[in-house]
């Protein structure tokens, strides 16, 4: 039988991980090159799939095989608009991280080749998570992503990496445990209704009592809220991102955390529509708190990497808020936000990493006047910062604005308070820029070198996409829209119609 496209996408990085590990230890450079080559081939393949999806729709990519019959578990993969966007993000960020982290793992606990092998393993598992259309398969892959991430943090990071890695693992496992309870619950329901099946297409037909639905929803939601991470389950992230290498942080915040918000759309809204609507007020308030709390804490940080981690907590607040606004603007905006946040945070973490590796310190107070000695570094840092604060014209602006407008159309008070977040974002970014890059040149900064070609090369694709999708986001928006429409139908919500619609002719 022939191997499906998505299986191929999932296998390729796995094979790459194995191949990287098989390279003899003495040939570290070859191992890196092998890893990079596999990630690039995966990217090309992903691009082909994405274009094919855009043209021919999803059917071509769906695969399903019975896996464990007794559980009703299937090896089932498929794509929808939300999944495609995140698979593309994964395939895009992986080679960028590999290039940017070229020398970052040379002094780790283990050989550098294992660093790149774990990255590829993580890529494979993440693609699987975003493509799984069977809840059991999703759960297995969801938990499996913890393994490479645990080793990436614990093996190649700062002084407190062990603590950070364990903390990350414990939080995630706790969330996963509750989800497991819900997954088992689904099995029970499904078995009662006839043959057990974990396929999403079968599960949506289940009849659930109001209470059961709410309990199952909570199990999933809690796991995703830890992952995303939402206040008050967030404290593992600053530790993890602060200790990990910049490349690892990009994968963690840019991709792995998106599983949380992705899961909210596909599983919380998809399987438990009534419970999702029921939970909306609480979730929106929690998300609002995340937006403001994350931003305020970012302002108060003294460590560059922790600061960026807190900005992400604020950004994830926006994403969750857009999802639970249950409007098409909110949902499309949130999905787009996931993609754009991946780009902007990757740029921010990577450039911050370039800076930190030169000075050997992540403390903001150790910097000052960098712009004068390393203008390209400072310029890219500012650019990444501006995209993080959602400057109009750059891609994150559109997604953030859609989210806010989506919330505004149904929950005015929450949107009005959330808008304050844009001022706080300007503060945390520009304060950090001012303290590190401007002013008189500080001691220890005089000899700082500017970015080299490899470092620039890793950032350029991000810059191009951030500008390009800021001006012309239509292709991505068009891919997302159908998925959002079907989600909205599933939940049974519609947009609020404009109060005073202006006729087509006048538009």
């Amino acid at each position, binding site marked *: *039988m022939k*191997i499906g496209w998505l*299986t191929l996408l999932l296998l390729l990085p*796995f094979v790459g991980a194995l191949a990287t590990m098989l390279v003899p230890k003495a040939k570290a450079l070859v191992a890196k090159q092998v890893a990079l080559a596999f990630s690039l081939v995966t990217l090309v393949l992903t691009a082909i799939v994405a274009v094919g999806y855009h043209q021919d729709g999803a059917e071509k990519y769906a695969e399903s095989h019975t*896996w464990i019959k007794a559980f009703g578990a299937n*090896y089932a993969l498929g794509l929808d608009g939300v999944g495609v966007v995140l698979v593309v993000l994964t395939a895009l960020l992986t080679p960028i991280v590999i290039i940017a982290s070229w020398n970052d793992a040379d002094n780790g606990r283990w050989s550098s080749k294992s660093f790149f092998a774990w990255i590829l393993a993580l890529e494979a598992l993440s693609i699987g998570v975003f493509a799984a259309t069977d809840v059991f398969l999703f759960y*297995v892959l969801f*938990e499996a992503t*913890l*393994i490479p991430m*645990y080793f990436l943090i614990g093996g190649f990071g700062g002084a407190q990496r*062990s603590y950070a890695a*364990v903390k990350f*693992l*414990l939080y995630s496992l706790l969330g996963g445990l509750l989800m497991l309870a819900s997954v088992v619950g689904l099995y029970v329901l499904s078995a009662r209704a006839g043959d057990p099946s974990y396929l999403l297409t079968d599960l949506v037909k289940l009849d659930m009592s109001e209470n059961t639905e709410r309990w199952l929803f909570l199990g999933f939601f809690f796991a995703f809220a830890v992952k995303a991470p939402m206040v*008050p389950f967030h*404290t593992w992230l600053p530790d993890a991102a602060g200790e990990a290498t910049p490349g690892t942080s990009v994968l963690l915040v840019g991709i792995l955390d998106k599983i949380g918000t992705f899961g909210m759309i596909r599983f919380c809204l998809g399987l438990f529509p009534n419970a999702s609507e029921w939970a909306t007020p609480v979730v929106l308030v929690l998300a609002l708190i995340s937006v403001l*709390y994350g931003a*305020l*804490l970012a*302002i*108060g940080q003294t460590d560059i990497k922790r600061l960026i981690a807190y900005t992400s907590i604020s950004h994830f607040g926006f994403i969750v808020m857009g999802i639970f606004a249950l*409007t*098409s*603007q909110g949902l*499309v905006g949130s999905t787009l936000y996931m993609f754009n946040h991946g780009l902007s945070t990757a740029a921010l973490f990577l450039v911050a990493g370039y800076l930190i590796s030169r000075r050997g310190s992540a403390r903001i107070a150790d910097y000052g*006047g960098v712009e*004068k000695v390393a203008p390209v570094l400072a310029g890219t840092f500012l650019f990444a910062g501006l995209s993080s604060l959602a400057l*109009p*014209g750059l891609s994150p*602006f*559109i997604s953030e*604005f859609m989210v*806010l*407008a989506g919330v*505004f*159309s149904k929950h005015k008070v929450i949107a009005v308070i959330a*808008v*304050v977040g844009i*001022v706080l974002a*300007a503060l945390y970014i*520009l304060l950090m*820029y*001012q303290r590190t890059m*401007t*002013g*008189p040149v500080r001691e220890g900064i005089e000899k700082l070198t500017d970015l080299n070609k490899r470092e620039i090369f890793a950032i350029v694709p991000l810059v191009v996409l951030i500008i390009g999708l800021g001006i*012309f*986001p*239509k292709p991505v*928006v068009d891919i997302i829209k159908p998925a959002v429409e079907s989600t909205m139908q599933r939940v049974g919500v519609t*947009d*609020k*119609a*404009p109060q*005073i*619609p*202006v006729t087509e002719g*006048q*538009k």
Partner: protein
Amino acid sequence: MSHELTWLLVAIPAVSAAILLLGGKATNAWGHLLGTAASLAAFVCGVLLFVQMQGHHGEERSETVRLFEWFQVGSVKVDFTLLIDPLSILFVLLITGVGSLIHIYSIGYMEHDPRRRRFFAYLNLFVAAMLLLVLSADYLLVFVGWEGVGLASYLLIGFWQHKDSAAVAAKKAFVVNRVGDIGLSLAVMSMWALFGSSAFVSVNAGAESMSHTWATLVGLMLLLAACGKSAQVPLQSWLLDAMEGPTPVSALIHAATMVTAGVYLVVRSHAIFEQSEAASTAVVIVGTVTALAGAIIGTAKDDIKKALAGSTMSQIGYMMLAAGLGPAGYVFAIFHLITHGFFKANMFLGAGSVMHGMNDDVNMRHYGALRTPMKITFVTFAFGYLAILGIPPFSGFFSKDKIIEAAFADNLVIGLCTLLGAGITAFYMTRVMLMTFLGEKRWEKDVHPHESPKVMTVPLVILALLSLVGGVLALGGWLEHWLEPVVGAHEEHHPPLPIIVMTLITLAVVAVGIVIAVAKYRRDIPREAPAGSPLTVLARRDLYGDALNEAVLMRPGQYLTRTLVWLDNRGVDGLVNGLAALFGGLSGRLRRFQTGFVRSYALSMVFGAAFVVVALLAVRLS
């Protein structure tokens, strides 16, 4: 030039900025020339479009150019559409015209700066963003230009960022503007909710059906945005600090163009403001308060640029209040905006020329008697001075008098305030004149004032002439007629007294201001500022605007963040860690638990996962 090519106006300076920024040192030698050429090219495009517009009549002069669909979600569709109409073309000419002169001037002013190329890149970026702002046909697209100019302003205020003060001022400007952006964001969101669109045509068409409450709310949000960008009370505090930027920047961005964007926004949104008396009144009040506050601040500043900055605040206040007066005021707001663009740019560049000759000293107490060594600067500055005072036949006479008349026709108190403002303006501008160009020498040692090179004085001369003749725009009601398709016809206003009497009264008040200033500053200006009365101190401290911000926002904000950081580390995290310790027993045992069990657990999961993969493959291949 076909209107289809309007996008070139934005694209030319944008591409030039990109070349200069990405080209790096390779473009150092000719960067300033490319930057200036790009600005001039945009100006030529603007003139061609203007000439072509003359061939049409009335509403036919407005052309929309749809470039592509930006995005469409739900019921909202936003197109990348430009609108070239009688209002936007005036701005295009002002921005590119004055902008080009300032580019030329900067060639001389920034000659010895090692980062001159970058300066021109930022200036081009500004021109592109500002043109996008005034050419957009959708509020969301306006927002892109709106923050684009904010970014350019940020980069240019902080251009000498090795100085802490410049970096701090730049950040402050951006953050305060972001507070204003809350207003613009919410306004656009409301438009989406109300009309399902934020395109000008849709909003204008739907505005009449808005409820009164919504019209007021949207109007107030737009006003908040305008306050941020145009440095109106209560968001005025950033403009004085913005003088940290190089002087050509102060002239172009913080006097002639960007800071007037708020006035543009209000005039452009006239359909909404006409639905709400409350929102229009708020605009008038904000304008009046700022007109007076700026003027008062201007009276006490010894820093020539800050005195002019206070004046800018005040003059924009005049425009704003005119825009709030409704159809009677729109035309005069725009008229004053244009003449102010001429004479204020002229005076700022003049101040730059003075600084150029005085080793970058900005303290007017160290000036005096500069009329002899700097004749051209003196005469051109004097043209600007006469224009801002409103002495006939200088341009300011026509534009400011109209606003004062309209204010009186609307409300006696507002009218008196504008009259008082005119008097204070006369006072502080005369003070600047006397302290800088007249009186005795109070120069520092080793300062040898000299006239600036031609590349700087020629733009001064041109702007001085424009300050003189700018009033012709209103000849025979040309401007009113020109803007009628955009802002509607305006009913004749009736000031309480005949216009000639009003004019004479205004001139008399101005004369009083001049006389007081002459009496006070004719001679014996101490080189050190005297302690001054409480009123003087109040004005020197910018009416305690910064102190207020600090007490109400900054310090409580700092406490809040610090407390939260502490709580997050001790409280939230501590609680969870405590729980973890509880589960794991003693913390020492927890540590063993961490390095031993977890890793082996994870490892077993790896094997499990590998097993799953193999199992999957086996299933698939069977």
